[in-house]
Structures are given as C-alpha cells and as structure tokens.
C-alpha cells in the first residue's frame, strides 16, 4: 500500500519532476559555464578574489530556483487532489489518513531533497576543481538557505492547496510571504549559519499546516 501511495504521487508528478530536473540542470550548467569562461580567460584567481573579498558565492543566479521548484512540485502534487475535491477519494482509501498525507508530503520533500542534493553535489564537484574545500563549504552553506526556502515553498504551497477556507489561505499566504522574505533577507554569504537550525525546525513544523487544512476539509469547512 505504501508503494502504491508513492506510485500515485509519481504518476502525478513524473513529467513535472523531469521538467524541474532539466531546468535545474540547465541553469546550473549555465551558471558554471559562465564561471568556466571566467577561469579560462582571467584565471581561477578571480573566483578566489570574488569569494574572499566580495559578498558573493558566484551562484546567485540559482538563488530562487529551489523555491520555485518546491512551489511547482506542490502544485503538481496537490492541485489534482483538490480539483473536483478528489481529496475525498484519497481520504476514503482504507489507509490511515494521517499516514497517507505524511507519505505524500514525504514524497515531495524527498524528491526535492534529491534534486537539491544533485545540484549541490554538482556545484561542489565543479567548484572544487577551482577553489579549496573551505570556499566550497562557504558556497554550500550559503546555498543551504535557498534549499530551505525550497522546502518552505513546497510545504506552504501544499498547505495553501489543501486549505479549504479563504480566511486561512490568506493567513498562510501572509506567513509564507514573511518566511520567504526572511530567508532571502540577506545575500551575505553564511549569514544564516547560526539561525539555520531554528529556521529548519520552523519549516519542519509548518508541515502541520497540511494536516490542519485536511482536518478543516474533513469538517466540511469551506467557502
């Protein structure tokens, strides 16, 4: 049964995931192609100088990609569930409803994590040819917040989809806007190092909004 839950999510999202994967790959490739050109014509020292003396991690073009990917995946997973109130079918399946929703959310989060991990590994692999581990780590620690924004984008978009009442959708949207603003507040590398664990906890806690929305759906609350 667990496999079939994942199978259903896979059927909904496989082409979307492929699209996201290709888009992420293309943008990442484009980003590092530009850097490779800089290295070829001006030397890797320029990358070192930028990473050490300027407020950049060289991959800023990828900043919003994880958040957009997260939101898109959530839409791809949950819009089919709310269209024609298809969620009723899902909730009627002879499977604990909480676990069902958890499995669906974990599918999305896992898929995103794999995509982000792929991008991070590719970035680290390419960068490590040019700069030392300390600078690669700096780039990855900075990008970690963008991935957190991706998970947040996924969870809040999912919550928005599953929420049956406009009042709560507005509240969720406001909080989501605030959180995303916070996650993109500073472009200074490693600015979020100390705060990151708390932000991660908060984003994880926001998963509860999905269950709250479904609970309201089950009470028949709607507009």
């Amino acid at each position: 049964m667990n496999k079939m839950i994942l199978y259903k999510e896979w059927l909904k999202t496989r082409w979307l995931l492929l699209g996201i994967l290709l888009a992420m790959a293309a943008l990442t490739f484009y980003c590092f192609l530009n850097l490779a050109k800089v290295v070829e014509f001006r030397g890797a020292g320029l990358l070192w100088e930028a990473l050490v003396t300027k407020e950049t991690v060289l991959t800023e073009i990828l900043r919003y990609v994880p958040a957009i990917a997260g939101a898109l995946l959530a839409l791809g997973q949950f819009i089919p569930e709310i269209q024609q109130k298809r969620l009723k079918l899902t909730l009627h399946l002879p499977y604990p409803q909480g676990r069902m929703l958890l499995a669906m959310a974990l599918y999305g989060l896992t898929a995103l994590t794999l995509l982000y991990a792929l991008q991070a590994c590719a970035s680290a692999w390419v960068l490590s040819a040019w700069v030392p581990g300390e600078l690669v780590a700096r780039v990855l620690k900075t990008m970690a917040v963008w991935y957190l924004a991706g998970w947040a984008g996924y969870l809040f978009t999912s919550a928005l989809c599953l929420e049956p009442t406009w009042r709560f959708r507005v509240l969720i949207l406001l909080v989501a806007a605030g959180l995303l603003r916070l996650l993109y507040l500073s472009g200074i590398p490693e600015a979020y190092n100390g705060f990151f664990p708390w932000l991660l906890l908060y984003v994880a806690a926001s998963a509860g909004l999905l269950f709250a929305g479904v609970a309201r759906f089950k009470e028949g609350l709607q507009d």
Partner: protein
Amino acid sequence: MQVEPVISCEHLTHYYGKRKIYEDLNFTVEPGRIVGLLGKNGTGKTTTINILMGYLKPQSGRCTLFGEDVQHISPETRRRIALLLEGHVQYSYMSIGQIEKFYSAFYPKWNRDAYYGLMEKLKVAPGQKIARMSNGQRSQVALGLILAQNADLLVLDDFSLGLDPGYRRLFCEYLRDYAKAEGKTVFLTSHIIQDLEKLVDEVIVMDYGSILVQEEAQTLMARYPGLTLEDIFIELTGKY
C-alpha cells in the same frame, strides 16, 4: 437475532450558516438493502453523503457505519465501503491499468475480473488516461472500481450525473444484479428518479428540513397506483 443496521443516523441536524438543511433527522439502512435518497436540489442529499463519509461535521447528531462513528471510521471499515463521488470523480491522470493497479493494493478482496469484465466493453486504448474519456466511459471505470472492491456497502452520490440513458441503464442493471447476487448494501442518490424505480428496494424522500417518507419502493408505488416514482415524488414534494 437483531442485525445491526449498516447505516444509522440519529438526531442529525445541520445548517449552512443560517440556512437549515435538516433538523433531528433519523434513518437507518439495513444490510442487503438498496436504498435511494431522493430530494429536490438543496434538500441535503449530498450533505448526507458527506456526513456519512466523514467529510462534513454535522451541527449535532450522530451517524454510524457498521457501528463506527462516521467521524472516526477506521481503515478496516473503510475497506468495506465503496464510494462513488458525484460526477464519477476519479484519479483521471491515471489510465485504466494504472488505476486498477493502484486500487487493488488497498483491497485484499479485489476482484480483478469484475473490473476488467466491464473495461472490455469500453473501446479505449489500454494506456488512455481517464481524463481523455467521455462521461459515460468514466462512469464505467468508476462502476468497475466499485464492483471490484467487493465492498459490503456501496455509497453512490448522484451516480447518473452527466450520463446518457444508455449508460444509466447499464449502470443500474449492473449495480442491481451485483448487489442482489452478492448481498451488498447500497445507499445512493440520484436526481433522475425514473432510474431508481427498478433499482431500489427502499426510498427515503427528503424535503427541506426533514424526511417526508421512508418506505419500501413497491409499497409506496402501490399507494399511488398508476403513478411513476417520479410522479409520486413530485406529488409528495410539490411541483417546484
């Protein structure tokens, strides 16, 4: 020995805002019966289905399915209930094969032959998405899934919505034959009352706020000789 009703609703009251849907509604559905819930638009038919399936919390009152409170139906009990949503809503991004593969994993008593028996009648490519099928074809897929689940209770909300007479007839015939042969309990609503005449054992006629009559269909029709069930319904509820 008294057999527990499959469906039982007691003192059911619900409002949408200030609008009363019904107050102190009481009814039961005994095992093995095919019961049709009739009423004009807005009398609470879909509301009742939603309450029974746990998608709506009534203002007050209690309903049970197989003795379990509908607000907390266990997965084991849900396995005994086949549900058809209004409009034959399905996972329309799946194909016939994919949806069968999906559902069969949840129902140990899954009857593959019952499903594919109906699917053979559909003239569709095996990989065709349900979304690309006609209303009638989709209703057959829905019917096939319902039958294959081998459930003890079938709940169908307006099963005839969007179907032409041919498909409606097919649906009714299949459903009755299956229910009677397997001793299933069926609880359904439909806005096309003439379909129910040959299908249901018992009718519950709802009016705004209450149940007008709950009676054997044959007994009701005998009380109004010469009238069809539809005529009797209009007689009971008024023309408009």
